[in-house]
């Protein structure tokens, strides 16, 4: 017998999912008119029905947020706002297991990641911003910076609750109120967060959540009562938002797509680099805007790295996201799976060499084996377009400058990774890379104190850290944002 790990499923009994959800407006749940199903992407089981928010729902939510802003939230001191944020953070920690299981059910990502990464980071974001609430005067953002009022926030499906935290925590800390729309396929943890707001006795209307699809998001973007838009999602939608608000005085931060370069020099620490490549592209099924989806490796060690990468990939455990030993979970939706398959087929057609380890994938649900394409060049579409799945394109370079040129030769500029044991080379490379986030000898590390955002078509503005606060304040000196 060999060491086969027996199933170790996390119990789902800790969550109770209602058959149907409404919107969360002015501190209470209000019934929706139309509903659509939300499924577990690992099994296609219908988990619940989510309300499809229309213009009138958004209207009500914005009015509630405006009222809460003028009547209560703007009158509270930073210290008092901070207390609510601390309270929310503590409740999130107390209910961490519940959130982790629910996120895994709704999103398809492994419980190991929701338990060890998503939910702890969510709490960390609230704790971090709670600390800023009463110190905004001292954040170097000018004297007595002012909130915008109502912030409209639209978040994606890849890190549902974490993206909520990235948006809601700084908005509340800086004194704004919020109308938030979670992604169509992943609304459940946002709705559970609404319960946390109730539990924390957050004043009514400070956080409003309207569920729905693109039309709901559009209603938020175009609503005249909203002064600040924060969006995370595709570059395509980001451009639409930019156009929609072009003739208004709305401010916006946009976190959009990426095609992150993970650059490996010949003096890299090999085993940790291989881990970093795996973490860069297979973390969260590759549904990561800052994923290291392009491996740019020095030609002299490419063979060794690819060989070791394949050995390591064969050990990735793909399967039931609720199993504590699963490394790679389900693709979030059928639409996304189709997109990944299409772009991969283009990779084949363009002559790149595809490789995946042997994986037993379930017939039910949406699955895609971890995949690498070797022999990729800049001229391949899979080196240019965001696949947003567990698919890595491998390119090679000869000189450090060539690595920089290739890394920057994309319309995106969100993230990059540098692998080298030579400090001076790391500093040199980080000065030449046009990317908002650069990791050295690690990848996909997040911290609320660190600003996050992109160059070029990867977005406007920064979230997190002091920069992220500035994006929610009128006289905040923010770079890159409208």
């Amino acid at each position: 017998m060999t060491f086969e790990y027996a199933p170790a499923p996390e119990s789902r009994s800790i969550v109770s999912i209602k058959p149907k959800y409404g919107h969360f407006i002015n501190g209470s749940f209000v019934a929706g008119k139309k509903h659509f199903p939300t499924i577990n992407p690992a099994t296609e089981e219908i988990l619940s029905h989510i309300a499809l928010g229309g213009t009138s729902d958004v209207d009500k939510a914005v009015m509630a947020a405006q009222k809460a802003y003028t009547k209560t939230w703007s009158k509270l001191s930073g210290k008092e706002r901070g207390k609510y944020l601390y309270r929310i953070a503590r409740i999130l920690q107390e209910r961490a297991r519940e959130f982790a299981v629910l996120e895994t059910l709704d999103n398809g990502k492994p419980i190991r990641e929701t338990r060890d990464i998503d939910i702890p980071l969510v709490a960390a974001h609230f704790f971090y911003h709670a600390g800023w609430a009463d110190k905004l005067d001292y954040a170097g953002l000018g004297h007595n910076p002012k909130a915008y009022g109502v912030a409209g926030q639209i978040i994606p499906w890849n890190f549902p609750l974490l993206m909520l935290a990235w948006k809601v925590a700084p908005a509340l800390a800086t004194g704004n109120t919020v109308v938030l729309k979670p992604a169509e396929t992943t609304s459940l943890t946002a709705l559970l967060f609404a319960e946390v707001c109730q539990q924390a006795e957050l004043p009514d209307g400070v956080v409003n959540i309207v569920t729905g699809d693109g039309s709901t998001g559009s209603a938020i973007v175009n609503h005249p009562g909203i002064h600040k838009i924060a969006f995370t999602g595709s570059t395509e939608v980001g451009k639409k938002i930019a156009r929609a608000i072009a003739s208004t005085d709305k401010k916006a931060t946009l976190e959009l797509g990426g095609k992150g370069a993970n650059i490996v020099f010949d003096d890299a620490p090999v085993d940790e680099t291989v881990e970093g490549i795996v973490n860069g592209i297979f973390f969260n099924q590759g549904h990561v805007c800052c994923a290291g989806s392009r491996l740019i490796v020095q030609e002299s060690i490419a063979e060794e790295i690819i060989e070791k990468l394949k050995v390591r990939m064969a050990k990735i455990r793909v399967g039931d996201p609720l199993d504590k030993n699963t490394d790679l979970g389900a693709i979030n939706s059928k639409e996304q799976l189709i997109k990944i398959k299409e772009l991969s087929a283009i990779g084949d057609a363009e002559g790149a060499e595809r490789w995946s380890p042997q994986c037993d994938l379930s017939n039910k649900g949406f699955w895609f084996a971890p995949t690498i394409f070797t022999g990729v060049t800049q001229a391949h579409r899979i080196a240019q377009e965001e696949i947003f799945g567990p698919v890595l394109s491998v390119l090679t370079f000869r000189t450090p400058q060539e690595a920089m040129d290739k890394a920057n030769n994309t319309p995106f500029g969100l993230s990059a990774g540098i692998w080298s044991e030579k400090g001076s080379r790391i500093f040199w490379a980080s000065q030449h890379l046009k990317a908002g986030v650069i990791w050295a000898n690690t990848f996909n590390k997040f911290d609320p104190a660190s600003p996050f955002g992109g160059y070029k078509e990867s977005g406007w503005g920064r979230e997190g850290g002091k920069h992220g606060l500035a994006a929610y304040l009128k006289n905040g000196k923010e770079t890159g944002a409208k």
Partner: protein
Amino acid sequence: MSFYGLVDGSEKSLIQYLDQLSGVDQVGAEARAAMLATRSIKTTSKKWAIETAISMVDLTTLEGADTPGKVRALCSKAVRPDPTDPTVPSVGAVCVYNDMVEIARTHLDAIGGEHVPVAAVSTAFPSGRASMEVKIQDTQDAINAGAGEIDMVIDRGAFLAGKYGLVFDEIVKIREVCGDKAHLKVIFETGELVTYDNVRKASFLAMLAGADFIKTSTGKVAPAATPPVVLVMLEAVRDFYAITQRRIGVKPAGGIRTTKDAIKQLVLVNETAGPEWLTPNLFRIGASALLNDLLMQRMKMSDGYYASPNYVTID
């Protein structure tokens, strides 16, 4: 002389070889070990892991207060860890000081434990601070007394001073003394080498010099067999196998006291070197208290409840 055709035994060739090894990133290695520690091993796989771990224990007593009586008791325990259940395998070896080898060997043979080897700690264990003549004599004594395995310590002072040739020569000489009579385990005392870069270098140095096993620690210095140290050594034996087609064993020792710790080690082996290493021929755990915790957990799995520690023999 040629060592796997990779170095010629000169310090120059050795330094050249060790210098071209990839570095180890501390943060990354520790993160990988921490991630593997989250593996959840349940039911059938847990039962298998516990029994496998029992068969891998080098049951150890290395005290100034060791007596013939204590060593004989240890040997009895090693052969039949659970006297009420003959299906429990014998441990991997009994590990004692040099002067106790004969007592251990004689007693093991007398009680039907011919299959359990005696491992002797050697070369001026634990510090390694003695002349080469003394170290050779120490090893020869142990082999003459019936040791089937020699756990030698390297000269950490020489290693840290960069005298790799000296460390290498010592291992080669002890390897010659062992001949085909004894397996050679080379102890690094990773708590004194400190960096993972050093651990990786020492691993290759020992393997090139002819070690059958590389071992973390003496048990006398903390930290000892931490998961990232074992990870780095497992990566080294995996890489060495890819180059030479020879599998070298790994023995963590020191600080592994609970079943949970032991299972974490097996997970490291499984997902780093690979399942081929999950045998007592290629993986051992140097421990004393661990065995009883494994036995208690094994009983718990079959009975469904934790028995009093009095249901497990103390030695």
